[in-house]
Every structure is written in C-alpha cells, then in structure tokens.
C-alpha cells in the first residue's frame, strides 16, 4: 500500500457565529480521510458541507477544534516544512492583481526557495503550459477569470511538489479552460504528482479522480473509487418496441421504450412480457451508475445550512 501523504483523524471544527446572539456551528464532525501517494482524490460535497473548512484545517489556515492533521508523517507541521512539499491553489485564484503573471510566479517561486536559474526555467515552462506566455508581462487586473485561475494553478505547479491541493479549481470556467485544467492535472498525475481536489463538479471528479470522498453536513459519509460504482450497482437498460401498452415503469424514447431492470433475472422476465405483448427487444445495455446519481442518493437534495 502506498505512503499516506496527508491524513486527518477525528477532525472537528466548531465556529462561533453571530455578534450578539452567539451560537456554535459544527462545521466538521469526526472527519477521517487519507490521501495516498499517487492519488487524485476528489473531495465532494454540497455548498456548506464543509469542503473548504476541511482544506483550511488541513493547510493550517484555521485552527482545528479537535483531532489531528498529519502531513508527510508529521503532526501539524509548520508552514515552512509543510509547504515545501505541498502547494495550494485557492478558489478563484486569490492573487494581488497589481502584479504581472511573471511577477506573481517569480515572487512565489522565491518564497518556495527555488534557485534563480531553476525558477526562470520553471516560470517559462508553467506559463507556456497554462497558455499564458503572451500575457506573462501584463498585470493580472487585465486578465480574464480563466486566466487568473490558470495563474493560480501555475503557482501551485511551479515548484513541482509532491501534493497539490486544489480548491474548486474550475469553478466558473468555460469548457475550454476546464478541459485545459483537466489535461494539466492528468499530465502531472501521470508523472506521479498527488492531487487533492475539492469540487462540486461531479463529472470532472468522475473523469479525473481515482478516489472520491463525499462530505455531507460536516461528516465524511463515504470514500470510493468511481470504478466501484459500476460493480456495486449494476443495472440494465432494455430498449424495446411494442404496439400496445408498454411495461409499467418504462420511459418513452424517440421510437421505442426503455425499461431499467436490476439484474439478468429481471431482464429475462421483462423480455418474456415484451414478447407476450407482441413487442421486440432492440437493445440491452449496462447502465453505469454515474457519480452524480450516487452523490444524490447519498447526500439527497436537501438544503444544507452551514458556514
């Protein structure tokens, strides 16, 4: 089993909210998770479920109420140790917009302790990778949202860390920028970089991640790999044509009906009933339960109120 790079044990986080009538809000309740070397870990949850709070606790940006954060085998390492091996790309790339793209990368690269020759080379490489070479000497105030996001990812990729934490990396981006982000993540993941991606874009997590954790109302409710979804819940779609009454539970498609059945036994029964009604089966396909289906089943569509 591969090495655990980032772990939290029984993580609790409680906020006090309100100026006059102060009340306590439990943002995280006994969260346990492990990010192993080579993982592309997708961290899913609704708005207010506790995703960003978990990240902030993991990175030491907010003190934890109870529990432990262990990074690279060390409990709550100081920033000068933690961030030499881990980098962070915040939501909406929060970088001072008075700097140029090149200045941002150069300043942050120096903070990472990179020597000047390597820094210059990496700045040029990451700018080219994120398709920002032409805009490198323009101030970020003149950048589009997508370009700022790309600068945020570029500064996280710059020192070639072991683990990169991304907080909602593709939020509000157009499809082409999203695709570019995904390609870069896949390229670095293939080279051995571990990712922890906080997102609620389920399709992207499904495509890019090999492990997924779902948090709901401050609790980590499940951890799985997207591949497990098929084997755990296989079902079959039966497409058929019939002149008379369709089978109960069928959905009408263009020129045929579709019935979802749980297993091969139910398929045999449905096929017999279709034949009895004078119909013909045109296709049988395995329905893969999508992460979205699973997420909604686990989390439901209730409104979550939280910090």
């Amino acid at each position, binding site marked *: 089993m591969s090495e655990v790079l980032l772990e939290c044990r029984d993580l609790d986080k409680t906020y006090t909210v309100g100026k006059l009538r102060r009340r306590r809000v439990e943002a995280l309740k006994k969260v346990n998770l492990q990010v192993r070397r080579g993982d592309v870990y997708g961290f899913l949850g609704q708005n207010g479920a506790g995703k960003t709070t978990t990240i902030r606790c993991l990175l030491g940006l907010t003190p934890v109420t109870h529990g432990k954060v262990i990074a690279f085998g060390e409990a709550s390492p100081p*920033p000068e140790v933690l*961030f030499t091996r881990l980098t962070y790309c915040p939501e909406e790339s929060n970088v001072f917009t008075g700097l140029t793209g090149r200045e941002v990368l150069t300043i942050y690269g120096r*903070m990472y302790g990179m020597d000047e020759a390597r820094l210059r080379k990496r700045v040029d490489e990451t700018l080219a990778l994120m398709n920002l070479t032409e805009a490198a000497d323009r101030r970020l105030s003149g950048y589009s949202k997508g370009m700022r996001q790309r600068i945020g990812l570029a500064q996280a990729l710059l020192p070639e860390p072991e683990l990169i934490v991304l907080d909602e990396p593709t939020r509000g981006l157009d499809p082409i920028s999203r695709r570019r982000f995904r390609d870069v993540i896949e390229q670095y993941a293939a080279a051995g970089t571990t990712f922890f991606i906080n997102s609620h874009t389920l399709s992207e997590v499904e495509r890019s991640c090999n492990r997924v954790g779902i948090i709901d109302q401050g609790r980590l409710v499940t951890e799985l790999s997207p591949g497990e979804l098929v084997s755990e819940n296989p079902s079959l779609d039966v497409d058929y044509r019939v002149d008379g009454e369709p089978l109960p539970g069928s959905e009408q498609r263009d020129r045929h009906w579709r019935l979802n059945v749980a297993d091969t036994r139910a398929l045999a029964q449905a096929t017999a009933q279709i034949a009895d009604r004078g119909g013909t089966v045109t296709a049988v396909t395995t329905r893969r339960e999508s992460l979205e289906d699973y997420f909604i089943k686990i989390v439901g569509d209730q409104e979550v109120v939280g910090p």
Partner: protein
Amino acid sequence: MNVRAHHVAHYAWLRLVRSHYLKALLAASFFVAVAAFGGSGGSDSVMARMTALEVAIKASRWFVWLAAIWIGLSCITDEINAQTARTLFTKPVRRVEVVLGLMGGGALYLTLVTAVNTLLIFVIAVGRDIPVSLGSFALLQVSMLIPVFAVLALTMVLSLVFSKPIAGFLMIFLAQENVWDVLATTLNASQRPDWFKVPGVFLLKLCYLISPTYHRFIQEYQEFIQLEFPWGEFVFHTAAIGFYVGAAALLATFILRRKDV
C-alpha cells in the same frame, strides 16, 4: 534556517508602489512640502524662512504618519479580506516572517517617501537661502522615521485585534498630538503675515479653535530645527522602537495563528 521574509517584503513593496491611494498621498505630501514655502519669498527675515522650513518638514511628517497608519491598517487585514492571504500563508514562510516582511515592505515605502520629501525640502531650502546642514537635516528626518515604524507596527496589530475602522480611529487619536503640532506651527506662521502665508489658513484656524489644548501649542511653537543632532536620544529611541516593533510582530504572529485566514 531559510529566511524568506525579504521575499514577502518585496511582495509588500510592489503592492504599495502600485497602490493608487498611496500614490495620491505621496503626491499630496510633495505638494504640501513645496506649498509650505509659498509665502516665504516675501520676507528677508531668517526667522520667517526658518518657519517656512519647519512648516514644510512638519507637514511632510504628517503625511508620512498618515501613510504609516494607512499601510498598517491595510497590509495584513486587506490580505485577509481579499483572501490573498491564503495564497501567501500557504508558502513555506514562517508566520512571523510574513508579518515582518509585510512590515518591512511598508517601512521601505515610508523611507522612500521621507527620502524624496527630505531631498525636495532641502533643495528648496537651499534655493531660498535657508541655512540648513544636509547632514543634520537628513539625520533629523531619519529620527522621524523611528516613531513612524512604531506607528506602522502598532496599527498593524490593532487592525488585527479590532477592525480596520476602529484601529484607524485609535491610531488617528494617538497620532493627534503630531497632527496638532503641524497645525499649531502653521497657525503660528499664519499669525505673522510679515513672515509667511499658508494656503488654507482659515481651515487651520478653525482646527485651532476647536482644539481644547490650543494654548499648549502657543507656548511650544518656537521649536525649530536642531542643528545639533541628539545622538543619545536617537540611539535610545531606535532601541526602544526596535523592541516595540519586535513585540508587535510577535503579537501579530500570535493573533494570526489563531485567526481564520
């Protein structure tokens, strides 16, 4: 041990240099420094010319104090409010280095403003035949920077403990003696029309009238540039301010460790 505070200071410096508010403040301080000499050409009296010089110096001090308060209020709290702090605090830099770096960038900026103002005032003073020794004048300006750094550090801590408006109010309150000092000197000059006239004197007179301690300033107005530089005091104040700045940095670091950024 890797020390990376200077990279944070470089970042803070760039932030300040590109701030439009500070550019406006800087331009205003240059304007006031020059304007203070506006009426001195009308009199041959040495006292009148020295008063013009004193007004210019004190007015420039006032602007540097305001800039220090502004920078102290904004350098950490703006980072936190704009969430750029998350990007900064997730670099391999100790919290105390982040605080010292931000403070260092601010101090560097204030030093630059003071240096440019000093040079400007000195050139005008020489042009007006005002007897000033550059060495003493420069040292006097450097000594002025010492409390400015303390104001910067204290404002930074207060803005972390309280909100920006409360910290700003407290600092203006604490710095009011300096402000009234400028006003009193200006008023003194304005009451001697044979010496020197200051633009906007009616507004300054109004400030003077509502000041509850105005007579104190009347007694103290005859404070001119000391050509003998007080080295003993300079060293003592430097040590004291070093202690306060260090204490402020540690306190700010302590607060930041417990604050959500």
